[in-house]
């Protein structure tokens, strides 16, 4: 069954629009899954609840993109491509998430900075997506941007609290910046399916978001007593399916149930 699915993936899942939807879906799902790893382990109850809530929002957003991708990729009359098959039966090389999303939780500083860097980008993406030519994507963006607004506020406040906190928390934030910054460049570097979508009006021109994104990060970093790294080598590849070794471990856990017991339901 999986072999058959894979055959079909090569044909219908290679359309640029579907690739783009998968990139959006995969990124929100993988970050949502990472955040969900905190459930039951948060530093205090309220923050455990907060990060789990954010995980839920992201996984909900991922579902909307997967459902739409499945609708676009489905052959007429077929029913085998579903949001679940897309999330649970593709391999690491098929995943198009940003590398930033798959990075390990590390300490609280890494988790909240990863969220802040990502949500600030996602907000700008959703803002532009609402003006795009694809009606369904615009509707998803209109819905999801409200949730993202809360994520930016929450994570940004933590960046300031820790950056401008104790000597130890400041040191942890510096370390978090060092770990995560090399994965931010990818957010603004379009790959082939995006370039095609930008021309046709359904993809967000991510390169144009870099300046407004940097301004928002700068503003929070200023308040936090942190500085934006000037120039640093940037790692790319996530959108092309070239991932860090961390994704394989994440998928092994996330997909285990559907791989071991195909088609099982709650």
């Amino acid at each position, binding site marked *: 069954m999986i072999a058959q699915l894979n055959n079909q993936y090569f044909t219908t899942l290679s359309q640029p629009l579907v690739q783009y939807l998968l990139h959006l879906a995969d990124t929100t799902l993988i970050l949502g899954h990472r955040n969900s790893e905190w459930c039951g382990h948060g530093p205090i109850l309220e923050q455990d609840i907060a990060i789990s809530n954010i995980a*839920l929002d992201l996984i909900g957003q991922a579902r909307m993109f997967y459902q739409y991708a499945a609708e676009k990729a489905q052959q007429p009359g077929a029913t085998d491509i579903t949001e679940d098959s897309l999330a649970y039966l593709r391999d690491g090389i098929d995943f198009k998430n940003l590398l930033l999303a798959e990075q390990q939780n590390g300490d609280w500083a890494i988790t909240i900075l990863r969220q802040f860097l990502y949500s600030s980008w996602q907000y700008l993406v959703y803002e532009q997506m609402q003006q795009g030519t694809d009606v369904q994507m615009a509707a998803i963006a209109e819905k999801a941007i409200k949730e993202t607004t809360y994520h930016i*506020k929450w994570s940004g406040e933590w960046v*300031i609290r820790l950056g401008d906190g104790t000597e130890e928390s400041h040191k942890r934030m510096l370390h978090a910046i060092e770990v995560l910054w090399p994965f931010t460049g990818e957010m603004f570097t379009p790959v082939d399916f995006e370039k095609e979508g930008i021309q046709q009006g359904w993809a967000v021109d991510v390169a144009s978001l870099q300046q407004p994104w940097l301004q928002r990060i700068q503003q929070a970093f200023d308040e936090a007593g942190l500085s934006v790294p000037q120039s640093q080598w940037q790692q790319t590849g996530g959108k092309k399916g070239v991932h860090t070794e961390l994704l394989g471990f994440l998928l092994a856990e996330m997909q285990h149930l559907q791989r071991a017991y195909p088609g099982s339901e709650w």
Partner: protein
Amino acid sequence: MTTISTIEEQKVWKLLESVYDPEVPVLTVLDLGIIRKLAVVEGRVFITITPTYSGCPAMDVISMQIRMALWQNGFQEVEIHTELSPAWTTDWMTEAGRKKLQAYGIAPPQYRKNKFHTPSFFEEEDTPVCCPRCQSTNTQLVSQFGSTACKALYQCLDCHEPFDYFKCH
């Protein structure tokens, strides 16, 4: 929305008054403002609902409960369609719903004064959130995220009770 509602449609609207949000069990689906369209054509019911939050697990349960309520009252064929745009906002919650929330111990959402925007860091609501128990406005935000996606945690600084606030969306 149709302007002339048939007797059957009025019956369906009435039945929806018995379908409650499983996570905030004092609010009906009508109080929440999530029913966007309703039509009955030759005995078939068409309902359009809009989700509150993208990942809200209550949405699937709500659809199921709507079907159950209608089936039990003779409506065999029910089609529920989900519509994302325009996006749901707490401004669509009814006055009756707000009063029920307050009585239940959850501070109702404030109306949005402006278009949805990104608030500055550490900025709270435009007007103070009122404690549902003692009505004091001397309250403080404990956490932006509460027991469900739609709520924030607050504490009253007068009666010292912690309480949920149904946040603006």
